[in-house]
């Protein structure tokens, strides 16, 4: 938590002015109806963007891009029987990035006029020229052909902003009522929606209009045993998705049962919030009396909603080329997977480990037509049969690894932040041979099945990690035998992925999402998905996290 966020503790329920609780990039609180108004049309945006590009070139830029951004957010928060807050925000402005004297410069303005954008462009060039005096490495961009005037839209079926707020409140309050009726002590539930309307133009000749949607329904249900003072929480098994409100219309085909005896249901492209809260309430009460784990080595069976976060931390981040090269050394850290390490051809994982980067996958958070520097998106291999084959790159990095093509991984959280390299969707490919979760569990002698993501921590070079989960089940001689508590596992990234012993097939594959992945200074947030099927890892070190305090 940032020191300046301390005041945020007063919370929405206190009725305080909402500003400190809303990220600075979210923009102004507006009437919900405002979120349905169309933005400026593409012809006008082209005219505005050209004013910026021309001003940058006239001031001496050798390259410039202009991003006109309109970000819309709506969040509904409830607890128990009450609505805690409904916020609708709009942020509108322009960011101009330039190269002058071989150095980047950036400036942003919310004065979205030809004059305002031209002024920002001139300021960006001034900053670039000033910084070029202490610059040692000249910027070199991988070539991109101009795309002309093009458009892309997240393929949603129902725009969540068009759904009346009352319907969202009704859904959340019915979720809360279900939990309370089943004996939960407390419940918080939310629906968060994002619509990024982005217009990108560059001196390469691209004019790209994109309309991007994301949705994240979630809850946390708490059970308390007053007599012992023990409390436990079970978070939702939903994922944030690159979908519209259709995600909240459950379909039977999207439900995937966990192993027999586990009472876990996973969700693909639609989510049954009422069903999940019912099993969450049942499970959270079981957690209060579940057996405390005996520490030691176990074979772990990890469901996709859990494994997604492990993939995110131990594969997605270490393969970001800016970390590998040292650009994030002061905050997020560097990476063990250096160019020298890659050259040694050391196995990242077992032969079953095939991991792809993907900016196209339908329903994913990272899917866009073009990235924030006008590169058409694609899918590519990161790890093939256990061997590291590539990184995640943007235009000014490709030459540093002897390549001449960006991977389309450039992103800025808003028009007022400079774009930089972010993680694409990074997913473990499902097994090629038919394997169900029950078949996988059948062969485990002493193991733990973990569903949902819990506490997570990893070192700054991505060697050593520790993960918790939402629910844990003991596996003995191929059977689920009951719930466990106080479970966390610790491993080394390479040892862990090399212990990968089985991956379920495509029928079990689904997406997990990270809605607010932080990186950079000042920190920026991005959203990314990770797909996988239930996977087995052998002989992983499990610790017991129970402690006694006074």
């Amino acid at each position: 938590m940032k020191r300046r966020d301390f005041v945020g503790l007063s919370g929405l329920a206190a009725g305080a002015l909402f500003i400190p609780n809303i990220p600075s990039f979210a923009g102004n609180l507006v009437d919900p109806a405002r979120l349905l108004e169309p933005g400026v049309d593409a012809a006008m945006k082209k005219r505005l963007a050209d004013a910026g590009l021309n001003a940058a070139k006239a001031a001496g830029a050798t390259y410039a891009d202009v991003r006109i951004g309109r970000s819309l957010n709506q969040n509904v928060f409830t607890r128990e029987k009450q609505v805690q807050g409904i916020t609708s925000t709009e942020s509108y402005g322009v960011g101009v990035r330039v190269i002058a004297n071989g150095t980047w410069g950036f400036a942003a303005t919310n004065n979205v006029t030809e004059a305002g954008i031209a002024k920002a462009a001139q300021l960006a060039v001034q900053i670039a020229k000033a910084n070029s005096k202490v610059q040692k490495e000249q910027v070199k961009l991988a070539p991109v052909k101009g795309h002309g005037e093009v458009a892309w839209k997240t393929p949603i079926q129902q725009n969540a902003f068009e759904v009346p707020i009352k319907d969202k409140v009704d859904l959340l309050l019915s979720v809360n009522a279900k939990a309370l009726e089943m004996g939960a002590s407390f419940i918080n539930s939310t629906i968060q929606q994002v619509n990024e309307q982005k217009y990108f133009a560059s001196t390469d000749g691209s004019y790209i209009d994109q309309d991007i949607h994301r949705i994240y329904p979630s809850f946390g249900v708490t059970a308390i045993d007053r007599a012992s003072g023990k409390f436990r929480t079970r978070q939702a098994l939903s994922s944030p998705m690159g979908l519209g409100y259709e995600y909240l219309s459950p379909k039977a085909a999207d439900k995937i049962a966990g192993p027999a005896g586990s009472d876990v249901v996973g969700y693909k492209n639609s989510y049954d919030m009422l069903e999940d809260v019912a099993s969450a309430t049942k499970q959270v009460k079981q957690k209060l009396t579940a057996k405390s784990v005996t520490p030691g080595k176990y074979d772990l069976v990890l469901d996709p909603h859990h494994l997604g976060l492990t993939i995110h931390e131990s594969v997605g981040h270490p393969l970001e080329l800016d970390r590998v090269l040292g650009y994030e050394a002061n905050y997020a850290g560097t990476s063990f997977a250096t160019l020298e390490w890659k050259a040694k051809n050391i196995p990242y994982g077992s032969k079953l480990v095939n991991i792809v980067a993907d900016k196209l996958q339908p329903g994913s958070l990272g899917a866009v037509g073009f990235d924030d520097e006008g590169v058409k998106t694609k899918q590519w291999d990161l790890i093939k049969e256990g061997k590291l084959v590539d990184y995640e790159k943007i235009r000014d990095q490709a030459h540093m690894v002897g390549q001449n093509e960006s991977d389309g991984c450039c992103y800025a959280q808003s028009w007022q932040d400079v774009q930089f390299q972010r993680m694409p969707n990074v997913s473990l490919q499902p097994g090629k041979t038919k394997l169900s979760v029950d078949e996988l569990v059948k062969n485990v002698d002493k193991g733990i099945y973990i569903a949902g993501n819990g506490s997570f921590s990893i070192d700054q070079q991505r060697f050593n990690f520790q993960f918790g989960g939402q629910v844990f089940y003991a596996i003995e001689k191929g059977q689920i035998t009951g719930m466990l508590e106080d479970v966390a596992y610790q491993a080394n990234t390479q040892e862990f992925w090399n212990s990968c012993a089985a991956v379920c097939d495509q029928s079990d594959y689904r997406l997990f999402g990270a809605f607010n992945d932080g990186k950079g200074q000042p920190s920026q947030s991005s959203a990314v998905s990770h797909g996988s099927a239930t996977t087995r890892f052998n002989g992983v070190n499990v610790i017991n996290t129970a402690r006694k305090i006074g």
Partner: protein
Amino acid sequence: MAILSKDDAHTLLKKVLSYSTADECAASLRGRTAGNIRYARNSVSTAGAQDSVSLAVEARFGKRSGVATCNEFDEATLRRCVQRAEEIAKLAPESPEYVPFIGPQTYLSPPSSATTLLTAATRAQAAAESMTLCAAKNLSAAGFLDGGTRFVAQRNSKGQEAYQQSTNTDFSVTVRTADGKGSGYAIADVTDPAKLNAKNITERAANKALSSVNAKAIEPGKYTVILEPAALMAGDDLSLLGGLVYSMGAREADEGRSFLSKKGGGNRKGEKLFDERITIYSDPMNAEVPGNAFDDDGLPTKRQTWIDKGVVKDLFYTRFWAQKNNVPATAYPNGFIMAGGTQSTADLIKGTAKGILVTRLWYIREVDPQTLLYTGLTRDGTFYIENGKIKFPIKNLRFNESPIIMLNNIEAIGKPQRLAGCLVPPLKIRDFTFTSLSDAI
């Protein structure tokens, strides 16, 4: 435009309130003018500037409330903003946690902020000094310098009015050896940027980087540790001390879902939960870490003790929870002070027979809210101490420890230093639990 004077701010807020027809109305202005520079591999990577001011209006009809914001201040926009807040309020459900706005208050005047600020040129100069120093030693610097001025003004229809301006500059740098075998870190934050010496701070990080090369592995387990302030408090992430203090909410405790909940109901206020040498308080008037004079609700801050000689003295009460429990509400401070002694980190090392010196902890996450068990790792300078001296650098370690247990295992408390707007002493702790080794450098 970003920083309005007290008079200009209140003239504007008065005008805004005059447009309202609501039962209650409150308006606030926030502005910040700031700039930053970021560098890595001894070269500038990005630089940015922020200049923004924003108005928030909250209108209330009975127990219904609506908020709208804007960042343009012509008369038509201001009127629209008030109108929008009123329209949203009329449509909103009644809040079961409604508390009326507060009336006129008396506020403290924390020590004034700096008048001279960094410019783009002086920021670039500071970064250049840091990079030049490292390049000369064949080291690689990655740093971030960010600073500026902010103001907050509040006014409501019950007669409350408040204004405060403050300045802050933060600098941190990670220095790595060319072969990647050593890494060091240093951080500082100041109210007055004239007091920031980027070169000296970089020198500290550079020395740690050079002396951390060829680290040896030790067995994980329970060790006596000396935690430097940067291992106890972080401005931009969860930390051992920040996590503890910021988890002291009364509502969560009373509801039974906090480490401060009491078996059978109620909270643990008044109980001795920590070593008697532990005292933590907030004081907006402290000259070294001047605080906020008022919080978002307009409540006046004052010197307030959270933990007194190991006893939980007070919890954070929101206005709603305070009203419900018939106790005074807590004004939220923007920092805290942990009382300490006079010993420096070097003195603590001298007095240690066997132990580990920790420069920084990283990626701290809560494992169990019931016990406030946290996990995380050491980073950028971890050393083994023997017979009062640093013997050799050691490989990084993962810990699983609760600050509650940690503050019961106190061996010594050093002299508090400023970090992330707080005053935090280095601590010597026995039986600190490390659970695994990390190869990260």
